[in-house]
């Protein structure tokens, strides 16, 4: 039996950019009508070229931006933010990890407060317990207790990315949209985060929409894969179907362009370089 937590139908988003002195205003079709379902407790990975509309899609799914047209249904309830009918429970059930963690953190808020804020606003967890939960979360994403009292600018890029993930999972949202969440992480920390996400999914039946351009990560984490190209979903299917038998030219190019990290390729490159 199908139990889709997220149903998206013919979703579109246009951006109208103001014209310059001599240029007329222009409409950019960032998302051109995508449809998909995500089963509860599963992971949909979204891949695609830079600028193809992935973050735009993520902002619509998480009720930050309104679609130009089309529909989104979360847990059976239609979402219409322009009508102002989104409840607090709904917002709490859907969280996002932004592509740009720096911009999404308040520079004047210490990390401890960043992590406790969702609990403070949405639950009646007492202060001491909030602190314990925040400390435990820091450890889970590979940060240390001494990071609790630090401000965002005192972190490395990858550490900030982990803070953003930690904040989003504090409330165990039903649906979590992650926009390039591990792009700044070295392989070891990346593995730790991916393992953590897998554990949470097992334990709480969380659903993920996972945007990534890293195919090895996608292959590891995804149940379903959607490939976007210039605002359209050009490929959508189970992970194995997409990886074993890609249909669209862009997907094929993507697989072929993956950098080679083997010794033979390095030797070939160095030989070409010294010959030049």
């Amino acid at each position, binding site marked *: 039996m199908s139990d889709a937590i997220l149903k998206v139908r013919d979703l579109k988003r246009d951006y109208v950019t103001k014209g310059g002195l001599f240029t007329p205003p222009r409409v950019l079709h960032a998302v051109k009508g995508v449809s998909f379902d995500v089963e509860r407790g599963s992971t949909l990975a979204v891949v695609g070229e830079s600028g193809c509309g*992935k973050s735009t899609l993520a902002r619509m799914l998480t009720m930050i931006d309104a679609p130009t047209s089309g529909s989104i249904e979360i847990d059976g309830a239609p979402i219409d933010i322009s009508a102002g009918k989104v409840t607090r429970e709904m917002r709490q059930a859907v969280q996002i990890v932004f592509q740009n963690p720096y911009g999404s953190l308040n520079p004047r808020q210490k990390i401890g407060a960043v992590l406790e804020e969702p609990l403070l606003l949405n639950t009646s967890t007492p202060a001491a317990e909030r602190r314990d939960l925040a400390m435990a979360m820091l450890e889970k994403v590979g940060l240390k207790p001494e990071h609790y009292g630090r401000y965002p600018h005192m972190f490395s890029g990858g550490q900030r990315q982990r803070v953003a993930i930690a904040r989003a999972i504090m409330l165990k949202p039903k649906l979590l949209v992650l926009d390039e969440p591990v792009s700044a992480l*070295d392989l070891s920390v990346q593995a730790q985060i991916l393992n953590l996400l897998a554990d949470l999914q097992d334990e709480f039946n969380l659903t993920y929409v996972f945007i990534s351009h890293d195919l090895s990560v996608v292959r*590891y984490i995804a149940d379903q894969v959607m490939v976007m190209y210039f605002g359209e979903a050009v490929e959508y299917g189970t992970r194995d179907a997409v990886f074993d038998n890609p249909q669209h030219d862009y997907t094929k190019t993507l697989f072929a362009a993956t950098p080679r990290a083997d010794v033979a390729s390095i030797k070939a490159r160095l030989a070409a370089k010294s010959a030049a």
Partner: protein
Amino acid sequence: MSLLQIRNLRVEFDTAAGPFRALDGVDYTVEAGEVLAIVGESGSGKSVAMLAMMGLLPDSATVTADEMSFEGVDLRSLSTAQRRKVIGKDISMIFQEPIASLNPCFTVGFQLLETLKAHTDLNRRQRRDRVIELLTAVGIPEPERRVNAFPHQMSGGQCQRVMIAIATACHPKLLIADEPTTALDVTIQKQILDLLTGLQRDHGMGLIMITHDMGVVAETADRVVVQYQGKQMETADVLTLFEAPEHPYTRALLSALPENATGDRLPTVSDYTEAFASEQTEART
């Protein structure tokens, strides 16, 4: 004489919880036309090292080094004004978080024009042409229109590429690229890496490439520095590093690729380092 020579660099931050040593005696040498890759775990001091060299760390940081010279000139002996002249023209940096380092109040075209105005003798028209040329080189579609876009109207990867265009605009002698392709899919990544290695080849530019992607290292680097917790674990030419990695951490880094997952858990470096540690203890007993 090396293009860049840093010896025994230490950086300590004053924090509420006491001093924190982010870097503990690291060395970097870059020759003209060379690509040095710095790899290492998140928080190991890769970005801090470069910011220290550029003089961009906050006051809470104490920086010391036995040597820190660019083309034989001690960077620390320069006045702020002199240093600013070198940085921006001869040394330029692609920052790790591009959206945060672009100015949200100005169009990307304006930001590129300002860079060209400050560091080149091009006239107005030439600057305009160069801006289009630069945006085309980093694969921004419809550059004539995109010059009028503000950073928030661009995607993450487009901002990253604008930053790359700004950093390469004046043909720096040394380019520091801090995770320059994290937001890019492999096809555009390839275009950007070709652009950077092209500049290095054609203009003898030195390139420091900070990355966690071993594929990028394999495809670009001449030499590699491996960092772990503020220390340098190993320095090797790229082939040696991949063929015969010396340090357990490097070996772990090369094995932690998701391709190598066993069952449904991904290997983490601590899995390996713990294994290495027990291997070593067993060997001793």
